[in-house]
């Protein structure tokens, strides 16, 4: 994939201010939650088109100014696969089985569920993972008569940590991978180790906080032990088919760099194959359950950010950032890591990363004007910046209940089940964990990319 280079000839004219106004107003509306974020994004994008900040040809067909279809089709493909897998009950089977392996001991269940959530989040998207694990968690907490809230918060945090490890784990990574032309293994190799360390430290912290607090009676543990996890499986044939396709898709992701496929190709192939072998005659449901609001949120944002790129606002900002750190790339990395963490805790990390991606590319162009394509995107001094952005944006999501979609879902499901997680209660766990995890990420980036060069 060659990124299309556009000629920059802009000045701070009318369209410059119009584009910024549209974007800022949209951002305020998204944060205020007065209007649904998808509606805001679609309206903002259409305004960019109507006011001719970007024209439709650019918005639909130029990656630089418009929709990144890699991201869109990767999301849609994975969502279709999950929609077909969910009703089989395989995930609930895993959860109940592991709760039994933990012998109904609440603290062990907490740890095991944290690990399962992290691993699943690395392979599926975070929202799906928590949608699968939270109901089982509420059930088990009820059975054991323990407070479900620590479990739910730990799962939300784990899903964001686990999702950081892979290209498909978290939307920021999907977006970064596409823009920076990084493959699945790049993410595993560069982010995997630090996520492993972060997860271990996180589990240690959980042990210190909850190790003694979670207790239950022997009789209640029997409730868990007497459950038959096989009851969860609704369709054994479909379980086999979907596990086969999932394995194929994961293999595809691992090899996509070597085979020169985009991740979206792999996901779409998997979606098509599973639809075919599922034998369903009515694909409506699997397709209708794709989270279209999320997909259109991405589409709208890409076009809005495209407007900002086109009027030159993004390259102006990238010059500012480089000025701020005086071109020192270690400082730039650190700035991006911490700024991303804070920004992602406060606003949705999707618009944030959508804006930062072109900014990083612009920065690279300014630093190495003679390079282009992968020579530019994968410049050894630029890579740590991409990883800082990914780590900051993904881990920062843990900072508040609105920092990541998984958190929003968990809080919503908990409330529906009658255990309200207040904003501050989430922050009380989330903010310190975010600080510790980003701190570890900082040490990692310094050690791996700067200390010995």
């Amino acid at each position, binding site marked *: 994939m060659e990124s299309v280079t556009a000629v920059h000839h802009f000045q701070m004219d009318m369209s410059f201010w119009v584009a910024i106004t549209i974007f800022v107003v949209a951002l305020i509306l998204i944060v205020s939650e007065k209007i649904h974020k998808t509606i805001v994004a679609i309206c903002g994008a259409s305004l960019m088109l109507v006011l001719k900040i970007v024209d439709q040809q650019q918005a639909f067909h130029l990656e630089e100014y418009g929709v990144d279809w890699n991201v869109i089709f990767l999301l849609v493909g994975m969502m279709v696969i999950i929609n077909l897998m*969910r009703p089989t009950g395989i995930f609930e089977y895993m959860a*109940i089985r592991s709760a039994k392996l933990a012998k109904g001991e609440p603290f062990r269940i907490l740890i095991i569920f944290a690990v399962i959530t992290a691993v699943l989040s690395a392979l599926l998207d975070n929202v799906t993972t928590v949608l699968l694990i939270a*109901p089982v968690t*509420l059930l088990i907490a009820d059975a054991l008569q323990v407070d479900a809230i620590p479990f739910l918060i730990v799962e939300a945090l784990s899903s964001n940590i686990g999702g950081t490890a892979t290209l498909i784990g978290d939307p920021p990574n999907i977006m970064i991978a596409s823009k920076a032309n990084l493959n699945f293994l790049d993410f595993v190799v560069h982010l995997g180790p630090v996520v492993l360390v972060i997860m271990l430290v996180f589990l240690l912290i959980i042990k210190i906080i909850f190790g003694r607090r979670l207790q239950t009676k022997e009789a209640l543990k029997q409730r868990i032990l007497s459950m038959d996890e096989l009851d969860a499986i609704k369709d054994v044939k479909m379980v086999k088919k979907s596990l086969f396709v999932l394995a194929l898709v994961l293999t595809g992701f691992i090899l996509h760099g070597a085979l020169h496929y985009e991740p979206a190709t792999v996901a779409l192939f998997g979606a098509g194959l599973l639809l075919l072998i599922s034998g369903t005659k009515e694909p409506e449901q699997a397709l209708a359950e794709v989270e279209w609001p999320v997909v259109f949120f991405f589409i709208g944002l890409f076009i809005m950010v495209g407007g900002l790129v086109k009027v030159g606002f993004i390259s102006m900002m990238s010059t500012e950032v480089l000025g701020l750190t005086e071109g020192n790339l270690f400082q730039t990395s650190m700035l991006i890591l911490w700024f991303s963490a804070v920004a992602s805790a406060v606003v949705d990390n999707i618009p944030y990363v959508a804006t930062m991606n072109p900014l990083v590319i612009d920065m690279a162009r300014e630093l190495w004007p003679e390079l282009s394509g992968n020579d530019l995107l994968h410049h050894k001094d630029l890579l740590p910046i991409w990883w800082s952005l990914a780590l900051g944006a993904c881990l920062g999501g843990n900072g508040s209940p609105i920092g990541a979609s998984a958190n929003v879902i968990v809080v919503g499901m908990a409330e529906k089940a009658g255990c309200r997680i207040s904003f501050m209660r989430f922050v009380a766990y989330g903010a310190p964990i975010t600080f510790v995890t980003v701190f570890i990420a900082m040490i990692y980036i310094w050690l791996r990319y700067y200390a010995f060069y």
Partner: protein
Amino acid sequence: MRVKEIMEPVTSNWLRPEQTLYDAICTMRKTKWEENSVNGMVVLEHGIQLVGIVTIKDIVKAIVPSYLDDNIGGFTWDGMFEERAEKVGEMLVRDIMTGELITAKPDDMVIHCADQMLDNQVQRLPVVDDTGKVLGIIRLRDVYLAMTTIVCKVSE
């Protein structure tokens, strides 16, 4: 036939949104209409303003946890019903009531009312006058009883 002729008048038989379900369930059990204990009551704020309605269906719904979806519906245990029932008692009327109601007017035709209940799949409608004051509640069962008096008179 008009609604006001067959409705159950609302006098003291109503609930407050901040009441616990423990209170509400016991009140409903004690309140009788046409010799049966009632299956639903209006919820009034400050004793005047209609904010919702609570029926036994809403209460039974509250006992089934929201997380019991298709895949884990089978994972229950002995004693779950009793534990949940106690938990439900601690919930508030506000948490389970149905808001945004369809209402009837005292002078509405009963047949129009019946049509509305069927169309909206509800068993009862609060009867409200033009000033918004709740006068009564009309139930599907009241409509049926009114029918029986006509039908049975003819056949006898």
